[in-house]
């Protein structure tokens, strides 16, 4: 095969068996790779009723067919599993160099099943793959684990691993790649549940393309265009996602309000963060360098360096928790990376707990005496340690936002702002709300992207259309715009390209500035793989992947009822609240119509599934004897069942 390497690496941890399985050409064509391949595997192999933290869950890691090629921004790894955080499909897309090295080692996907008796790590040296004892790594941070493995195998090795949080089954524990890149939705806890500590990969065999000369020429055009793009060159390459502080309305004190550019604390502006920056870094194959490398100048961890501090950390662990001290925020970022936790899940769960504390729903008795005052950074840092190690009140935080609310009861759920278990602040109806409400991994800003439909910036939107930075189809009607945006991000995740560092349409769809929508990407994929892709086939593939993900969630008990955005109790039931719900319901119906979902239930129709080549999925959904139990978060464990402890980072 060209583009793809033609091999899937299957690791059965229970039997300690490693199998190299050929990648079927039909599956490759239909699901492309990355997220598409992973979602297909999960639908086929993870049946309803599976405990996300049990041995029956499956963990998939996949680069895409364009990973490791000279098309820039393609070192992206998709990590997918049944999420122990949300109880539905959980995937995270992560940079670093792991995806490229895995591809060069010869694999299109790693599928991990079962559970090892004792801690193990996987060592992939091109064609040689071994499961090795990881007892010397267990209990160590992601940074220590990476250092030890790189010392053993060399600097040309990339490491994906978990820290103490993953070992202790913290439900928002992440897979950490190359120390600083985090794949969220709780995949880290799945590694921990399988007794898998790390995967180290060396890949040196490169990649073969069907028509390399032409591919290189076309990739070069896109690469050169890209680095000269204003957004990349002058904004992302300089400030990274920090720029979001000025335009993305971060939440403040658990979504009490959203901060405008003028309301951002002076110590947290993009310019202010420059003070701590000691360099910039990027992923393999990327000329943008969106990550800021920083050094903490003072305090407990003075002198410690960190690899990437994103907007999401500043927002979720900072402003939304009421914290405005940049030094504390840097310390929390490093703790999250070292323990291996997702800053969004961690930050918003703590913010939720703080909100409950101020409402008197939880007290010092619940927290074990730990203060949850908004501005108490020291207590929050202590709580982060306790969460990763599941000590005291941290054991409850480690359950994640939705389960925390359920366990506490006492009316806490009224304030649990989430979509399908993933935190999201209340927001008036509109496309932004619709995108979050329908995303196939719960509340999420990266499935249907906000920049892509201009709701937030009605002035810039027409200019983007006019200058060819957005395709004209986007302006047809709002739901069409959102659908196109969903297809773009689905395909980006499937080919192995980045959509996070870049924030422009041009990144999500290569060559969109040159050719009509999807044509440029179709050309690149055809040149790389030798299969003939065109715009229609790509749209169909994107819809196939997205609809299959929807079907996966339907089996987890998701219906129309769950495609709602949270409302604050003071808005719920009021005329304004009802008006918003009505508006949302109308948009949702239109969205279902466009997507071919049943208008009442939100389940993909047989007709639609058949059209996408998913007839067997329709059969399965229809012949299931009982209704699927309604989604109510991930299955809970008694708190004393979890492993806990470990050394403090």
């Amino acid at each position: 095969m060209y583009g793809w390497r033609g091999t899937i690496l299957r690791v059965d941890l229970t039997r300690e068996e490693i199998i190299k399985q050929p990648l079927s050409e039909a599956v490759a064509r239909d699901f492309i790779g990355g997220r598409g391949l992973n979602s297909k595997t999960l639908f086929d192999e993870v049946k309803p009723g599976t405990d996300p933290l049990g041995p029956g869950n499956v963990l998939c890691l996949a680069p895409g067919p364009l990973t490791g090629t000279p098309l820039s921004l393609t070192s992206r790894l998709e990590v997918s599993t049944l999420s122990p955080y949300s109880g539905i499909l959980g995937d995270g897309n992560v940079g670093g160099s792991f995806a490229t090295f895995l591809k060069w080692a010869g694999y299109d996907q790693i599928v991990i099943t079962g559970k090892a008796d004792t801690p193990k790590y996987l060592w992939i040296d091109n064609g040689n793959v071994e499961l090795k004892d990881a007892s010397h790594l267990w209990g160590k941070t992601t940074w220590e684990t990476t250092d030890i493995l790189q010392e053993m195998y060399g600097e040309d090795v990339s490491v994906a691993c978990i820290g103490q949080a993953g070992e202790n089954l913290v439900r928002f524990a992440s897979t950490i790649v190359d120390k600083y890149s985090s794949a969220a939705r709780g995949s880290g806890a799945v590694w921990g549940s399988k007794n898998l500590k790390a995967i180290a990969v060396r890949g040196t065999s490169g990649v073969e393309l069907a028509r390399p000369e032409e591919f290189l020429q076309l990739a070069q055009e896109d690469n050169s265009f890209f680095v000269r793009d204003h957004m990349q060159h002058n904004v992302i390459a300089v400030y990274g996602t920090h720029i979001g502080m000025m335009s993305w309305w971060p939440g403040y004190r658990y979504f009490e309000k959203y901060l405008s550019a003028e309301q951002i604390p002076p110590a947290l502006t993009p310019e202010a963060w420059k003070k701590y920056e000691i360099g910039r870094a990027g992923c393999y194959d990327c000329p943008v360098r969106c990550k800021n490398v920083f050094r903490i100048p003072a305090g407990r961890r003075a002198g410690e360096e960190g690899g990437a501090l994103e907007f999401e950390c500043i927002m979720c662990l900072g402003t939304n928790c009421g914290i405005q001290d940049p030094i504390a925020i840097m310390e929390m970022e490093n703790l999250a990376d070292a323990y291996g936790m997702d800053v969004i899940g961690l930050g918003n769960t703590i913010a939720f707990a703080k909100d409950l504390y101020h409402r008197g729903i939880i007290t010092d008795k619940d927290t074990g005496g730990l203060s949850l005052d908004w501005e108490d950074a020291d207590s929050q840092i202590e709580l982060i340690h306790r969460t990763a190690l599941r000590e005291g009140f941290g054991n409850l935080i480690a359950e994640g936002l939705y389960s925390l609310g359920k366990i506490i009861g006492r009316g806490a759920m009224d304030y649990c702002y989430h979509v399908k278990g993933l935190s999201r602040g209340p927001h008036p109806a509109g496309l932004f709300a619709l995108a979050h409400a329908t995303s196939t991994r719960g509340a999420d800003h990266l499935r249907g992207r906000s920049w892509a439909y201009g709701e937030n910036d009605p002035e810039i939107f027409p200019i983007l259309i006019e200058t060819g930075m957005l395709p004209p189809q986007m302006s047809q009607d709002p739901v069409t715009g959102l659908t196109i945006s969903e297809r773009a991000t689905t395909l980006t995740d499937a080919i192995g390209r980045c959509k996070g560092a870049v924030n422009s349409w041009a990144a999500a769809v290569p060559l969109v500035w040159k050719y009509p929508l999807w044509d440029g990407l179709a050309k690149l994929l055809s040149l790389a793989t030798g299969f003939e892709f065109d715009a229609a086939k790509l749209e169909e593939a994107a819809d196939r992947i997205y609809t299959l993900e929807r079907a996966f969630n339907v089996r987890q008990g998701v219906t129309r009822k769950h495609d709602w955005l949270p409302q604050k109790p003071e808005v719920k039931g009021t005329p304004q609240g009802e008006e918003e719900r009505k508006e949302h319901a109308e948009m949702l119906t239109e969205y279902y119509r466009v997507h071919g979902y049943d208008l009442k239930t939100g389940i993909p129709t047989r007709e639609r599934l058949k059209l996408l080549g998913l007839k067997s999925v329709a059969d399965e959904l229809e012949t299931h004897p009982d209704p699927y139990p309604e989604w109510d978060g991930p299955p809970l464990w008694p708190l004393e069942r979890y492993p806990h402890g470990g050394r403090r980072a």
Partner: protein
Amino acid sequence: MQPKMLLVDVGRCTGCRICELACSWAHEGVFNPLKSRISVITWRKEGIDIPMVCQQCDTPLCQDTCPTAAIFRDGKTGALVVEENRCIGCRMCIVACPFGGFSIHTERHVAIKCDLCEGEPACVKYCPMGAIEYVPVDKVGLAKKRAGAKRLSELLSLVTKGVS
């Protein structure tokens, strides 16, 4: 004709390594950095990336050290080129070169190095940042002086404006 050289602008390089893929493609027909003649060395914490490649020295230690006289200078480009059927893979050139200009081919086990692509270097063509230039050797000194002077003038204008 004056020989030309690869001039790397370290300030512009972002470490994306597309030059490595372009180079391995141009020489080996594959996209594989192990087979590239140019390699980007990264100091992550400092945020510095430096592409390292043969400097085509006027007094090449590699050529002096080679026991089989497999390294000769190309008349057209002035590049030092390895004649593979004479190379015995002894790696003395790797030992001798102060810049890491050589590596060993993973399958053919002969020394490989930059040959300036017969005057059209692939790394220059495909670098998205324009961080590698192919410029006449006699112009390099003056061009660098000019760039240095520009920086100095900017600094001086700040001083005269009383900024620093």
